[in-house]
């Protein structure tokens, strides 16, 4: 239609009114509905102060309004430093960093995982730890009189199998971000 060709057609966001319930069922998301938008979280957030893309109060508002796709596919949910400053101050015990974790968990299942987090999760699956402890590292440890550390930990890969994270990661989730 002709009007659709025009430049400033507003982008319509499809709302999912059930989204807030979905988040509330996720571990960490339980208290999201208590938010009364006071802004205490954002006003003390160091990340928000430096990066205008990040605003925890607004993210919670978007969830409550049902902006499911916008939130889950965003970069901003990955910006919480989980410093818990807001958590200590929120008058409604919304548990913001845990809500962000809940959102990230859902995002991962929807195929959105930040590459930095994917990389970390894969390293841990492979080595049992975030860093490989190779022979050189162990030599250095021995020189210092510190105990050697085994290379790799197969039980961690088993854990990924038990919980289904192995499948999630190999299904190629996370082209996004």
């Amino acid at each position, binding site marked *: 239609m002709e009007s659709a060709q025009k430049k400033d057609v507003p982008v319509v966001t499809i709302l999912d009114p059930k989204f807030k319930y979905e988040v509330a069922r*996720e*571990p*960490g998301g339980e208290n999201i509905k208590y938010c009364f938008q006071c802004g205490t979280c954002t006003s003390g957030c*160091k*990340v928000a102060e*430096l*990066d205008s893309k990040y605003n925890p109060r607004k993210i919670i508002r978007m969830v409550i309004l049902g902006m499911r796709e916008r939130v889950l596919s965003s*970069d901003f949910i*990955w*910006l*919480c*430093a*989980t*410093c*818990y*400053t807001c*958590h*200590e101050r929120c008058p409604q015990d919304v548990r913001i960093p845990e809500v*962000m*974790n*809940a959102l*990230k*968990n859902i995002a*991962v299942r929807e195929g959105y*995982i*930040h590459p*930095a*987090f*994917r*990389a*970390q*999760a894969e390293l*841990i699956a492979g080595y*049992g*730890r*975030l*860093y490989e*402890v190779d022979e050189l*590292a162990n030599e*250095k*440890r021995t020189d*210092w*009189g*510190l*105990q*050697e*550390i*085994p290379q790799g*930990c197969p*039980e*961690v890969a*088993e*854990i*990924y199998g*038990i*919980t289904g*994270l192995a499948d*999630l990661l190999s299904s190629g989730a996370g082209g996004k971000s």
Partner: protein
Amino acid sequence: MKMAVFLGCTVPVRNLSYELSAKRVAGELGLELVDIPEFNCCGYPVKSVHHETAYLLAARNLALAEERGLDICTLCSACTSVLTEVSRELASNEALLDATCKSLGMLGRRYSGKVKVRHFVRVLYEDIGLEALKKAVKRPLDMFSIASHYGCHYLKPSEIYDGFDHPEVPESLDKLVAVTGARAVDYRTKKDCCGGAILGVDEETALSMARAKLDDINSAGADAINLICPFCSVMYGANQRKIGSGHGVKYDLPILYYPQILGLAMGINHEELGLMQNPIRPRALLAKIS
């Protein structure tokens, strides 16, 4: 007193001087730290990706400590928070414990919910106690001014830490510094986060967060920063030069791990505490002592 020491991923590869000094000082104070080489990552980085996996990673670590009948002593603040959170959840939520035990059973492990977790510095503060530490000091560091970075997970979320220190007006680290004879430096941004957790997501913001604190600590006249977390050490130590050159400043702020500060005050040789192996060599500082 005997505890399992949980090194985490970063300390045993990148912060050997932290591990070395903690073990050295602990031995001197009658705290026996037992290594469990089979420990895996605490689970912290996985929590935002897959909650259940993070919990199981943490639970396996708790199970390994329980097998040996030991509580856990941690060196990394992020490890402390995840392991503490999971140990408390499993001790109070039977349904979760049952479900977790089912999964652990598939690995041939079991857990009954007994292990408690505490940061190394909290053990010094609460269990060894300031009085005993004071007695152990042989060479008071009254020529030093030291600014403590509390970081986040050592104190927060406060509901998992039994109120051993206040998240908004913390004092444990300053008291621990003061006990060594050094001046504990107060500064405006003391409670702020270093930004390390988002270094991989938004480097510019992360480094700016660290810079704000470096600037503050510098102008407060500190000789060094007291750290208790290897993540924070990446920000203030490994990245200090990068942060400085990014805005035309040359910082020279050595970072010290608390057990190194305490160890120096106890009269232990700096080589046994790995001081010259720190990311920023504290030459000027050491010259002040001798």
